[in-house]
């Protein structure tokens, strides 16, 4: 039953229909959670004992940084599925994720920089955390560039999948960089074995924003994947039927 549904989902035509119905169900909670998270974070949450009001940029910075890692794992996972099973849909998901991942990485770096200037006293330092996150941005850009450089979509998907999988080694390096080496960036607050060392009124908006960002990614990746699918399948029967019915 589940495996049959999974096989069905792998068919571009079924996926196109299914994702079209799914998107509004993800977009509405995304908007609600993001508004709630921003309100809780910018209005309700108390100022920090050391950083005052400036710490509030973390409600964008931290979820962006989490997403930059999460999306990379999805992209590499989809790439591996595409390589092993030659599944078209996985190829489409992988390349559709790359642009969103690059955007979140860029957002994490920029917001971090804006946060760093007043708190640390510098826009940028070459410590292990910041450098490895910058390498992640270059990996995303490399995946996008490689995909654009190859005309045949299926060859391009295979080449980018290998690059994406090679880059996976950077993910644990980013996460553990603050523990393995001395860095200017502080250690983990939420993703550690101890209880999170953050006040509950600050943790709630942070988690709300994290879930909202995840939903945002789901919505946008589905939208991008639908476009990519239509372009790839433009010569098939189901796409021409779809075009005629509109």
């Amino acid at each position, binding site marked *: 039953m589940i495996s049959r549904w999974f096989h069905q989902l792998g068919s571009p035509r079924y996926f196109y229909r299914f994702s079209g119905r799914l998107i509004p169900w993800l977009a509405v909670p995304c908007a609600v959670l993001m508004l709630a998270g921003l309100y809780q974070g910018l209005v309700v949450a108390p100022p920090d*004992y050391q950083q005052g009001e400036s710490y509030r940029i973390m409600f964008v910075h931290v979820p962006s940084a989490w997403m930059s890692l999460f999306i990379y794992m999805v992209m590499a996972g989809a790439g591996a599925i595409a390589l092993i099973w030659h599944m078209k849909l996985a190829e489409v998901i992988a390349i559709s994720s790359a642009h969103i991942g690059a955007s979140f990485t860029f957002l994490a770096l920029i917001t971090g920089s804006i946060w760093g200037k007043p708190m640390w006293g*510098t826009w940028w330092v070459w410590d292990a955390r910041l450098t490895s996150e910058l390498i992640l941005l270059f990996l995303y850009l490399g995946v996008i560039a490689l995909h654009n450089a190859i005309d045949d979509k299926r060859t391009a998907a295979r080449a980018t999948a290998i690059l994406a999988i090679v880059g996976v*080694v950077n993910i644990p390096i980013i996460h553990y960089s603050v523990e393995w*080496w*001395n860095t200017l960036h502080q250690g*983990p607050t939420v993703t550690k074995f101890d209880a999170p*060392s953050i006040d509950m009124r600050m943790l709630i908006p942070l988690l709300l924003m994290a879930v909202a960002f995840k939903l945002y990614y789901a919505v946008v990746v589905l939208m991008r994947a639908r476009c990519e699918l239509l372009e790839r399948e433009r010569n098939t029967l189901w796409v021409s039927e779809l075009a005629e019915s509109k």
Partner: protein
Amino acid sequence: MHPKRKKRLYLILLMVVGIGIGIGLALNAFNDNLMFFYSPSEVVAGEAPSGHPIRVGGLVSNGSVKRQENGLTVNFDVTDNAKTVTVEYTGILPDLFREGQGIVARGKLDDHGVFVADEVLAKHDENYMPPEVADALKTAHQEGVEGQAPGTAAQ
């Protein structure tokens, strides 16, 4: 699983493990270079290279911050609770700079063992809490210390 797919899966796993080991060895070899700063203990023990600029990171010792006459030059001690290095810095300090705060200073050791910094960055910790909670924690800590004091004196 189809044997062909199984082969591809193993190839991918092999690739990830191989690259992981390679990068792991490389990072291990460059471990010292990846450290952003040295601790005062390392500097005192002479493990930090001399002659070119290094960074020293630690906590600003309580009561050690002294401003010189010209108003811009500051002296303070940086400690890792084992060893201490005296830092001299001329310039504007970051907002978070205060006694007890973690900082990272870049500069050189002079002949008298004073670390002359040309840049001081504040390092903030991973704890976030409202001021009243921080105050409550501080009061509770002080009460705890005062409550203990007679007992310690009696021993």
